[in-house]
């Protein structure tokens, strides 16, 4: 855990526990998220990576019976995102999310990207036009869709839909962007496009990405955390995790999968 010349912190989990009803899904997680870096969460299915990710934008609040313990500190203002006094809607205004399966809204391409801005009360056509264009460029989709912004988003291919969802999340300038296995429903070419995009995006935004694919974690991330059975087993620079893991369990997982 002792990493020198660390960049600034964007967020930090402190002794985070999470319960689905009675079942404890996250066990005492401590982990830093560094500003403008890509942090990957890896681990076998059911290890709690998605549960952990979804704590950052309080998605668990949508379902009854879920409970957090501990803190996720968010910087620079040092807010505890999990505090009951913090409005989850305010959290989601600052923390964007891209899901496993592309989930564009049943609206036009333009309106999908403008959605978050409209939620925030922006209705000025010129501002919207401007930000939609900027976000679509950020999502590396502008050139493909600029002539058909009013078409339904569902007409796009799967990879384009996912980039649209990224653009939708970018439009509101989030500080932290969560990716929940964003390429698991995509073909290799679309996956490569998303990975390149993630690489590009870290100049603007801090990224936390859950992935099943270890090569992907190795390719896109600066830091990697290995989770197992709800615990954070090891966290470190991606190179170190993959080349010389300190924990036997991390090594087993990485070598077992990568052969």
């Amino acid at each position, binding site marked *: 855990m002792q990493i020198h010349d660390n960049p600034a912190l964007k967020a930090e989990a402190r002794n985070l526990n999470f319960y689905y009803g009675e079942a404890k899904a996250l066990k005492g997680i401590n982990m830093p998220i560094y500003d403008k870096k890509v942090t990957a969460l890896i681990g076998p299915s059911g290890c709690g990576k998605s549960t952990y990710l979804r704590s950052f934008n309080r*998605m668990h609040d*949508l379902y009854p019976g879920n409970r957090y313990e501990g803190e996720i500190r968010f910087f620079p203002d040092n807010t505890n995102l999990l505090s009951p006094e913090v409005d989850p809607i305010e959290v*989601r205004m600052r923390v964007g*999310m891209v899901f496993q*399966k592309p989930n564009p*809204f*049943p609206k036009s391409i333009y309106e999908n990207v403008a959605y978050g801005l409209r939620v925030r009360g922006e209705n000025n056509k010129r501002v919207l036009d401007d930000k939609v264009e900027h976000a679509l460029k950020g999502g590396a989709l502008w050139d493909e869709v600029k002539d058909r912004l009013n078409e*339904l988003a569902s007409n796009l291919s799967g990879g384009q839909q996912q980039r649209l969802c990224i653009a939708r*999340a970018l439009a509101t300038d989030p500080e932290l962007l969560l990716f929940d296995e964003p390429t698991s429903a995509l073909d290799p070419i679309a996956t490569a496009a998303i990975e390149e995009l993630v690489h590009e995006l870290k100049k603007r935004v801090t990224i936390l990405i859950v992935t099943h694919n270890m090569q992907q974690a190795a390719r896109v991330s600066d830091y990697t955390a290995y989770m197992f059975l709800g615990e954070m087993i090891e966290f470190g620079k991606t190179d170190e995790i993959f080349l010389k893991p300190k924990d036997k369990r991390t090594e087993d997982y990485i070598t077992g999968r990568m052969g």
Partner: protein
Amino acid sequence: MNSQAMSANNPSDLPVVSDRLAKNAMRNVSERLIEALLLGAAAVSVLTTVGIVYVLVSESIHFFQQVSIVDFLTDTQWTPLFDDAHFGIMVLVSGTVVSSLVALSVAIPMGTIIAIYLSEFANSKVREIAKPILELLGGIPTIVFGYFALLVVTPVLQVILPELPGFSLLSAGLVMGIMIVPYIASLSEDAMRAVPMSLREGAYAMGSTRLYTALHVVVPAAFSGLAASYILAISRAVGETMILAVAAGMQPNLTWNPMEPAATITSYIVQVALGDLPHGSIGYLTIFAAGLTLLLITLVFNILGQWLRAKFRENY
């Protein structure tokens, strides 16, 4: 691998089929039997429809041999049983349209709001209790609704609108709207609940409130289902009989004012069918002409519904 592939190409080398894989004659027979049974069941409903259409059309042909279609559509009076007989169907259509519009202006907003509440806001306990009760409302016999309109709603409305007559399209239409609410609420709720959670999560993750998510994401995503429920509601309203027969008065009256009493297509049919009309007389034939008109109106809405469903099919 290779030798297997070769022997499979040569039928004489195939092993004898074991007992377990041998064709079972009994199973074939019972499959056929079930298929015939299913086909028979399907045929009953199709044949019934065909039969109804045949009767309506053939009797209406007799009617239109005596009354021209132009008169039927343009005459402003409907007095088929008088000596000075007029056959202006628009008189009855106006009653049907006005009462349906009143009903839908109640049922569509209320049903949609209830559906949004049940699907997006209510917790599962409330939903489990509220939905069956709501559906119970749809099971009340319409004659009961009719007398409710006549004996409760009309007097209450007369307090606010003193000039309202004892029979009116307004009061019958309002109660008809309440009767239709459960259909819209239940079907719309089903359509909205079918919207995948991932879409809602996407909306919430963008910082939307529940209401914003419901109105801007869930409702548009479920639109084809909502439209289907509205179309069903229109068909129910157009075809509703007893409430109108009891509470709207049965005077044929060409009016677009809901504050007046009027007959509708359905209430006219009830009225005439209860009377003592000689088979084959012109009065008797009007039943079929009116029935055919009703069928065509509902057919138009059914086609419209199909078209809406195809155009706005769920694409999430």
